[in-house]
């Protein structure tokens, strides 16, 4: 099948390869990595990899790893997305790329 060689989109006024454009993307990536580390810590580490050792520690009336696996990780997931959205609002404004 022939590739779909569509007409190139018009060049936007914004320069993605300027120092500011690169700094914006770098900040975004740093934030994403930071939040994904937390995402992995509360689910894969606390709920699975450390499931057995953390089962001996109690979080109120349930084992700590059980709490992370059945409740805590989900709560943290929700918070992570809102933190990301709020933080990106600030970065977007800082670099003047907000809508």
């Amino acid at each position, binding site marked *: *099948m*022939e*590739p*779909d*060689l*569509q007409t*190139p*989109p018009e*060049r*936007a006024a*914004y320069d*993605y*390869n300027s120092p500011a*454009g690169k700094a*914006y*993307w770098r900040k*975004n990536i740093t934030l*994403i990595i930071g*939040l*994904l580390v937390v*995402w992995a810590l509360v*689910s*894969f580490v606390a*709920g*699975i*990899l450390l*499931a*057995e050792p953390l*089962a001996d520690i109690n*979080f*109120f*009336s*349930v*084992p700590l*790893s*059980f*709490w992370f*696996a*059945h*409740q805590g*990780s*989900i*709560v943290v*997931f*929700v918070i*992570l*997305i*809102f933190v*990301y*959205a709020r933080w*990106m*609002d600030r970065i*977007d404004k800082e670099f003047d*790329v*907000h*809508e």
Partner: protein
Amino acid sequence: MSVEAWTYLLVGLTFAGYIYIGYASRVKETSGFYVAGRGVPAIANGAATAADWMSAASFISMAGLISFLGYDGAIYLMGWTGGYVLLALLLAPYLRKFGKYTVPDFVGDRYYSNVARVVAAIAAMFVSFTYVAGQMRGVGIVFSRFLGLSIEWGVVVGVLIVAFFAVLGGMKGITWTQVAQYTVLIIAYLVPAVAIAVILTDIPIPQLALTFSDITSRLNQIQTDLGLTNYTQPFTNLSGLNVFMVTMSLMIGTAGLPHVIIRFYTVRSVRAARYSAGWALLFIAILYTTAPAIAVFAKYNLIDELQGKSVEEVNEIEWVDSWSETGLLGLEDKNTDGVLEMTADPETSEITIDRDIIVLSTPEVAGLPAIVIALVAAGGLAAALSTAAGLLLVISSSLSHDIYYKLIHPAASEGERLLVGRLVILGAVIVAGYFGINPPGFVAEVVAFAFGLAAASFFPIIILGIFDKRMNREGAIAGMVVGLGFTTFYIVGAQFFDMSLWFFDINAQGIGTVGAAMNFIVAFVVSRVTPAPPLHIQEMVEGVRVPRGAGGADVH
């Protein structure tokens, strides 16, 4: 009023509501039909996404599954929520900026290849058909269990309702009915959960009751007494490695499912896409943090009510009769000592509990009024119909937009495209209804396949398409072929041909993680030894990384 009268009333009222909303949001143009005119507010899209995502299985079966898996039920809890973090951080904002109608649109344009477009469209249709058959079946089961209608007629009623608002209103009609359906299903889920939490623990919030009362230790004690393993003991049903791999596979599969992704095309801006992912997960989390609480409460309560009681005593409990009739509750005094005993061995256990009974029987076991039982029926139907509608739209857009309009007849007028879209959705709903009435025996097995497929195909190539400017057509196609090929081979072999789980004993549900990793690696390597993508493609990638210029609601 009887349970049946209440059920007719509530189901009738909610259905009338869906039909009214469908009629009020009928559309005249393709952007309304495919992406609701890109005018959906973030919070409404969140509710619609939650209803879209939570299927009949989430509503009816999940708490039951968890109650039998115990700790290892975490695969569903974390797996079906954690994907939204990936979606919000890695996919939704950029795809919204890209701003077309479908997932194959992105794949086809980003990789300047109609082969990639067609592969993506076929994969999207396959994944969606797999799911939709199960939803229609769910509609039939709810009708037959609560209204005494046959499963066949239940499916027919469901098909008519979905066809009405989906054909008329497209994505716009589906979105607003999904918002209504979310409201119905979450109320229906929470009311019995709160009631049983109060009865067992005096704490009215199920999530807090699970964490702060002694109910979990009481259940652990009962299970130990019966010779079962502790409820909170990890890895009793699945190995640690499988819990890890299945959770990951469900997460990246969720983030790669087309009917979830396209919901983020419908919002006004990139910013709205980020927030609406947050709202979606919040709305989902309300149900997903309640489910593990119900799992513990209902299991404790059922065992506590039945275990060690005499046969006469048990037969006097009102709900025992009606649930024994459905075959979901099995009571048999096997050793004829007049007392019912539950044991770890299914051969000798005199009490057997089907997992679907956990949610459905809770209102009766907790002695709640008839209206609550009717509400659960309406909630189950809302969950099934909302998911079915979202899936049907993906099937329709893949066939009418990606294949018909983009490849076969690019000169089609707005009116022709809309007509084809409507005809395809009508055809799809009829096929889905047929599979609901005559379910192929392998539906449960192919669900693992749908997730594995989404994980091993869409997720890696969309991520790479956004975050790796150097990723090209050759890399993406090679990655998809290897990821899909391996995953398909492993799942089909394991599910249908008794192949041994030769890859580190990883089961069919978890192998999508390996398929996705292979896709990533192959795509990366191949792209580095083949020519870079054309300049205008690289500029397109730069463009999706910045929010400004996403274009608000379409004006027509």
